[in-house]
């Protein structure tokens, strides 16, 4: 584990074809409900989904449709009521320490500087002080916050805090990123910059990504695959493949994107009876 952390990650400019990669996360007929006030709310029902290594998969669908539950299951923070959930070919039974989880909440510790916040996961994993600070400095520089190492979270803008959180998530080199609407609280300009940075980092580090988002443009711009969920209890309505040629500018809209956007929109509108309104 420690060796993997301290080793340099191979730089990869061209992403391998995701379809040839082994399956990273496999949901097989997974169901999950929540009990409150004596009533069970079914969040997921018989959901099957395979995410291959190195794939960038977005999950879209109406709010409350169990997408966050799906991420929590993949992180091992929740247990499925029924069905099988495999990570890296093995049954997932506890917290999944191979994943990095980034939510709308930055979850930075206000009493720690940027550097100490980013180094925290390595501190937890028992990496020595010089090594973990060096690793934290490297990743902080990579997300463009080199001059802010000594700052505290309260002294940073929302976009900077988000980048600190991203750096902290990446510092221990997780195989998979689980992103739960990470950019929804940011302004449009900042969001675009971070989206681009994220896509670059994901390519460089060869990460598998599960992104929950309400922003269809974000999903189309970033992902290889878009999974559209129905209303609760969530089923998978359809899966779209988005061609992402190497070296394209993700911020630049393409004509083909509009086709996918309309298809997904119609699908979601049908499901939520928006079309009748």
């Amino acid at each position: 584990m420690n060796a993997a952390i301290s080793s340099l990650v191979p730089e990869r400019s061209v992403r391998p074809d995701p379809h040839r990669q082994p399956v990273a996360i496999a949901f097989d007929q997974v169901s999950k409900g929540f009990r409150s006030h004596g009533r069970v709310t079914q969040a997921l029902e018989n959901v099957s989904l395979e995410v291959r290594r190195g794939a960038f998969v977005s999950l879209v669908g109406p709010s409350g449709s169990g997408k966050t539950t799906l991420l929590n299951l993949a992180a091992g923070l929740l247990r499925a009521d029924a069905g099988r959930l495999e990570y890296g070919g093995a049954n997932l039974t506890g917290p999944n320490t191979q994943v990095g989880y980034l939510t709308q909440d930055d979850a930075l510790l206000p009493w720690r500087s940027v550097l100490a916040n980013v180094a925290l996961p390595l501190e937890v994993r028992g990496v020595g002080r010089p090594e973990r600070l060096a690793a934290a400095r490297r990743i902080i520089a990579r997300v463009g916050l080199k001059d802010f190492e000594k700052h505290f979270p309260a002294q940073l803008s929302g976009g900077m805090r988000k980048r600190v959180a991203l750096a902290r998530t990446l510092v221990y080199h997780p195989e998979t990123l689980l992103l739960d609407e990470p950019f929804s609280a940011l302004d449009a300009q900042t969001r675009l910059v971070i989206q681009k940075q994220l896509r670059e980092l994901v390519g460089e580090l060869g990460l598998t990504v599960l992104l929950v988002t309400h922003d269809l443009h974000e999903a189309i711009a970033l992902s290889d695959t878009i999974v559209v969920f129905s209303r609760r209890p969530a089923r998978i309505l359809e899966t779209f493949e988005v061609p992402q040629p190497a070296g394209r500018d993700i911020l630049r809209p393409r004509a083909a994107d509009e086709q996918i956007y309309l298809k997904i929109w119609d699908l979601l509108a049908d499901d939520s009876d928006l079309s009748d309104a």
Partner: protein
Amino acid sequence: MSSRRIALEPSNRGKPGDSRDNRAKRSDPQARSERVPRNRRLFGDWLAVRLAQIGIVAIVLCAWQFAPVALLDDTLASRPTLIAAQIFKWLTIGVLQQEAWFTLCAVAVGLLAGGLAGIGAGMLAGTMPMLGRLIEPPVKFLFALPKIAFVPLFIVWFGIGLFQETIFTAIVVFFFFFYSSFNGARSVPAALSNMLILAGGSQWQRVRLLYLPASVGWLLAGLRLAIPYAFVSAVSAEVISSQHGLGNLVKSSASVMDPAGMFAAMFFLLLVSVSVSGAVLILGGRSRWSV
């Protein structure tokens, strides 16, 4: 002091009628002379309040000193000059210092023991929901119970003296620390805790790196309440039954009809308790730890 300055700063900035030069000067740390009028007014307010306080105390002391015997019987209420003389006498022979040392020992050890136990139990209950649900109700019941009712039992169990007094103090302050750390730990957002879980953190690491630091603000608030209560409980235990401490000095003076001695012991107790609380307040006031 610094917080007061910060709070006033926004109104200081960009007042209508300010010329650009003035504003520029104000932001320049070397041009502090701009601020003097405001500081002088602040100092004036502070001085007025302090003078009024001193005046009120002086009036009360004078009334006490010069009230006719028909209104204030000095065999029951003594006189400020007699009390001052008693304090001076006891200070020269070291009685007050020695008794205060006993009380302080009970307070300090009680705070330490009760604090550690309270923080430990509160952290356990706050970070493990099932355990929290199990032990919070009995703690709530015990908190509601007047702890002074235990003193006779403790005297039977532990005898008269410092040990009994310290245990009583520890039990009283336990609850403040329990609730501070319990609430502190429970106020930590799940996102922070999940982050550490996924980073591979153990329960103890989560307590050490997240829950404890996140509770510092709560614990300081608890400490501010606990210190006066520690004095109250140590002195109560001494008054009920002890051969040492300022509480015992108050009681033994009262039992021989010596109001000057009683008030002398009480004033000294006030002095000690307020200085300890004040010192902790100053130390704790600098903290900015919270989630």
